[in-house]
């Protein structure tokens, strides 16, 4: 009996990678970084490029980080020479398309950092998409954008 249980477990273990491959990650994140800010600053900006690997459009619906009090999606833009910023509730990524978060455009508004973050530190960020999938990424704190 015990032997069968072990065999069953082994079989399940062998199948697990396959199950993962079947569902697969739906989004790939690249060029991830958080702009280092002076100590004591209440808000940091996070940037990345998200690539939708699926055949269906996806929407980024929520962003969380245990290293910050709250995280929102914001967009900066210049209107009539004036720098403005607005919260964006969610953001669509076309099927097999990508969306870029970058200075002067979409960015993560990362509020109330739980500790001072310096270049080289990592913050954990979890993205939730409309298909229910989640993507956990490690975002390095940097002084300047990563090279493309």
């Amino acid at each position, binding site marked *: 009996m015990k032997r069968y249980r072990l065999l069953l477990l082994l079989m399940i273990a062998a199948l697990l990678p396959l199950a993962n491959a079947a569902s697969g990650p739906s989004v790939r994140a690249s060029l991830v970084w958080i702009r280092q800010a002076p100590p004591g600053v209440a808000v940091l900006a996070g940037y990345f490029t998200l690539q939708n690997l699926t055949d269906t459009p996806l929407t980024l619906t929520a962003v969380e980080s245990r290293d910050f009090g709250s995280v929102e999606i914001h967009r900066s833009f210049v209107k009539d020479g004036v*720098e403005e910023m607005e919260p964006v509730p969610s953001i669509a990524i076309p099927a097999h398309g990508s969306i870029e978060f970058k200075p002067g455009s979409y960015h993560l508004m990362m509020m109330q950092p739980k500790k001072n973050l310096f270049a080289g530190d990592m913050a954990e960020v979890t993205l939730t998409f409309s298909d229910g999938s989640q993507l956990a990424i490690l975002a390095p704190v940097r002084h300047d954008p990563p090279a493309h």
Partner: protein
Amino acid sequence: MKFKTVLPFAGLFVLAIAAGIVTGRLVFQSRHAPSRPQTAALLLHDARPLPEFTLTSTDDKPFTKQSLTGHWSFLYFGYTHCPDACPTTLSALDHMMASLAKAAKAPKPAVYFVSVDPKRDDPTLLRNYALYFNPDFVGATGSLDALRALTGPLGVEFSYTPASQQGNYSVNHSSFVVLVDKQGEEVAVFDPPLDPRRMSSDYLNILKYYGETW
């Protein structure tokens, strides 16, 4: 005979023309040269004197029109709760300073970050913020009325968005950087996106245009 008498006059004539050309050039150059440089920055046709204003800088000195004389200055208006635009601009200004350091003898400009969010930007926070981008950057702020005395004439706008439930708000503010000459006059405006190398070469060309030598 005749030829002999004409010769000295001809010599004088040639000399006079040569002298005329030389003086003409000198006069012309002093008035018109160097020619107006091609810049990415908006170079004002005539420098505009700054208004009188009194703010406080983060080096604990009054920040007035007089603070902006005797050296060239860049002024940028923003706020520290600004995660995207302000760090991008201040970082570009820092890179511009690095690029200018290569033109070692050129007069170094001062860079001022003026906070238009005095409610949240206390002097310590503002100082840390400015210094973080470059140890020579100076922050400044003051009451809304004191700020408006400077921003109004410069055409710098700022306004506040409604606060969220948590009390967070953001500040809409002009995106450009102002260049002030050593007489305390506004001479040019730089619009984003800012290219630090282009800013540095524009700055040097504008200095030459204004007769600075180094």
